[in-house]
């Protein structure tokens, strides 16, 4: 359906609302797409979009970054990482800074690229920074299996995989969080299928729509959500049927399960959430750098005043953070939400900062 028609539909539905609604787009790619298309500007005043904790870089905590940087500084090590991680601040430094100081850090597009790096550098330890949600964890697991099959013994993972549904459960349990419906992460659902999201309807009666990332797909999701709110019903709707199957991708899940098992995980701003992450199974411990070469980093709790945690929960918008656009900007990010291209603060900074009008 065309965007213009969807917008008309959204406006007409919004007139039937008895009170303003807030929908959360969980996924950072949605956040960026919403800004790129200027969708917020086009929505009725009583329909608000808030951004959720769906940026894996943003929810990665200091301790992980400090470890990554500590490994990076070892002369026998090459770090292979997605470009997204480069600027994420640890407690004192970032990978980018470590690179400037001489660490060998390679930006890769696919986890499999790190296999080639390991093959080309047999006398170095190559560590892949395996960060991501359900979409990305199968790729890290596949890398591990491929490395094992190829007999590559100098490739390791520093792993911090996270799971979306447990984070949503924590959000819903948090009384400060007020959300009337979820735009669910389409590419996570490609792997997980719909099952892990059914609790939204069944336990909490919260409307939820699995959505794609184009403007028309996001507007479609908003239309579905409004429809449900207006009709006072809560369903789980798959509006991204072109790629999201009800059952997800079982092959991807079994690859993940072969290498990983569920574990508690620390989320930046949200603390430790039970069984919200993945850790490598003992069978693959020779690929787990934390098992092979354990390293402790001093936790250095710093008080920066950064409110990333509240931003990730949708409790405040970046504009309400005292650091935003003052001491914290993409050049000098204080919190991770300002680092990733799809971090909520970075998106607000890039596309939504300052009130201006060309009309």
């Amino acid at each position, binding site marked *: 359906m065309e*965007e*213009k028609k969807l*917008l008309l539909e959204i406006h007409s539905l919004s007139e039937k609302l008895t009170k303003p609604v807030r929908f959360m787009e969980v996924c*950072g*790619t949605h956040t960026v797409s919403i*800004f*790129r*298309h*200027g*969708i917020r*500007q*086009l929505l009725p005043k009583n329909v608000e979009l808030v951004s959720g904790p769906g*940026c*894996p*870089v943003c929810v990665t905590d200091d301790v992980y970054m400090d470890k990554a940087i500590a490994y990076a500084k070892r002369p026998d090590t090459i770090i292979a990482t*997605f*470009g*997204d991680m*480069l*600027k994420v601040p640890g407690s004192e430094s970032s990978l980018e800074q470590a690179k400037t100081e001489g660490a060998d850090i390679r*930006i*890769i*597009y696919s986890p499999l690229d790190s296999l080639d790096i390991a093959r080309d550098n047999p006398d170095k330890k190559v560590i892949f920074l395996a960060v*991501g949600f359900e979409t*990305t964890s199968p790729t890290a697991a596949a890398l591990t299996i491929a490395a094992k099959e190829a007999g590559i013994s100098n490739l390791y993972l520093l792993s911090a995989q996270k799971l979306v549904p447990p984070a949503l459960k924590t959000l819903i349990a948090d009384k400060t969080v007020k959300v009337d419906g979820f735009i669910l992460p389409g590419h996570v659902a490609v792997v997980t299928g719909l099952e892990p999201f059914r609790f939204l309807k069944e336990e909490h009666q919260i409307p939820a729509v699995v959505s794609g990332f184009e*403007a028309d797909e996001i507007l479609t999701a908003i239309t579905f959500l409004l429809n449900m709110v207006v009709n006072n019903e809560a369903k789980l709707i798959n509006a991204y049927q072109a790629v999201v199957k009800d059952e997800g991708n079982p092959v991807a899940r079994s690859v993940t399960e072969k290498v990983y098992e569920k574990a508690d995980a620390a989320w930046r701003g949200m603390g430790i959430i039970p069984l919200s992450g993945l850790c490598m199974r003992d069978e693959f411990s020779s690929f787990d750098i934390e098992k092979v070469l354990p390293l402790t980093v001093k936790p250095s709790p710093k008080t920066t005043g950064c409110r990333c945690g509240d931003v990730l929960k949708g409790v405040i918008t970046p504009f309400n953070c005292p650091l935003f656009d003052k001491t914290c900007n*993409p*050049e000098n990010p204080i919190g991770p939400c300002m680092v*990733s*291209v*799809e971090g909520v603060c970075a998106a607000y*900074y*890039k*596309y*939504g*900062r*300052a009130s*201006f*009008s*060309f*009309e």
Partner: protein
Amino acid sequence: MKELITLAEGAGGSAGEALMKDVVFPYLGNEILAEMHDGARLKVSGDIAFTTDSYVVSPRFFPGGSIGTLAVSGTVNDLAMTGAKARFLSAAVILEEGFPVAELKDILADMKKAAEYAGVLFVTGDTKVAPKGKVDGVFINTAGIGDIIEGADISPKNVKTDMKIIVSGSMGDHGATILAARHNMKSNLKSDAAPLNKMVEKMFKASKNIAALRDPTRGGLAATLNEIAKAADVGIIIDEAKIPIKEEVKGLSDMLGFDPLTLANEGKLVAFVPKGDADAVLAAVREDEHGTDAAIIGETTDKAAGKVGMKTPLGSIRVVEMPRGIIVPRIC
């Protein structure tokens, strides 16, 4: 001539002279250079423009050109963007010990080709050789002198509100080509690296009222528009649907998570032109072989001074920010 550059070639003396005579002159030689003075004596009249730029690129050869093409077109274009017709260039080449002479010849051949197209002469130069590992293959610096085109008065400060913004063709071709090569992507993409001085001469024949010209190199269109908006203290509003971008550039951007507006161009310009002259200047750009896809993409306004906005196909307006940092592929 040997197959590999050695430190001796950079030490002056006979090896250095042989490098000049056997390798460099066949490509870049001319009467002025042949005198082998410490400097060139040049005749100029009137106002001149003078510029310099250094070229460091990996990979050194890419579809559509090489570091040699860039070393000429980049400097010629910097002169053209100040409203000058490039005439004389210098070249300083820093080579890594062990650099293949054949590869140097290929680079020089690209420099010759671009210089002939632009109608410029290399009148002075220098070669140094750095020990292995101290230089990444080859670095080139070129400087250029050009005559200011009569009547041309180019400065970002001349940009006022209500001017039209012209781009000379599709955005991001060079950046996308380089990034595709770095990340094992295959496509028919070619760098747009080309001297634009002929296009600029045609544009000034069409109108002397062109206010500002820029080549959107590093940082792409997004950086260029932000720089002008800030320098001229005007608002800029462009129309997303009107910006020419090749399908392949969009494809690569989708795949690696880039914004095409931040990708570099090496043979494109952005012009700010008073409304009444815009159609004539656009026609002049399109007459040039490097400007066939030129388009008017937006205008300056008295609203939102210093900022760049873009109308999306949905009808909303989003900010086009100054790009930051290096461009790396991302997965989120």
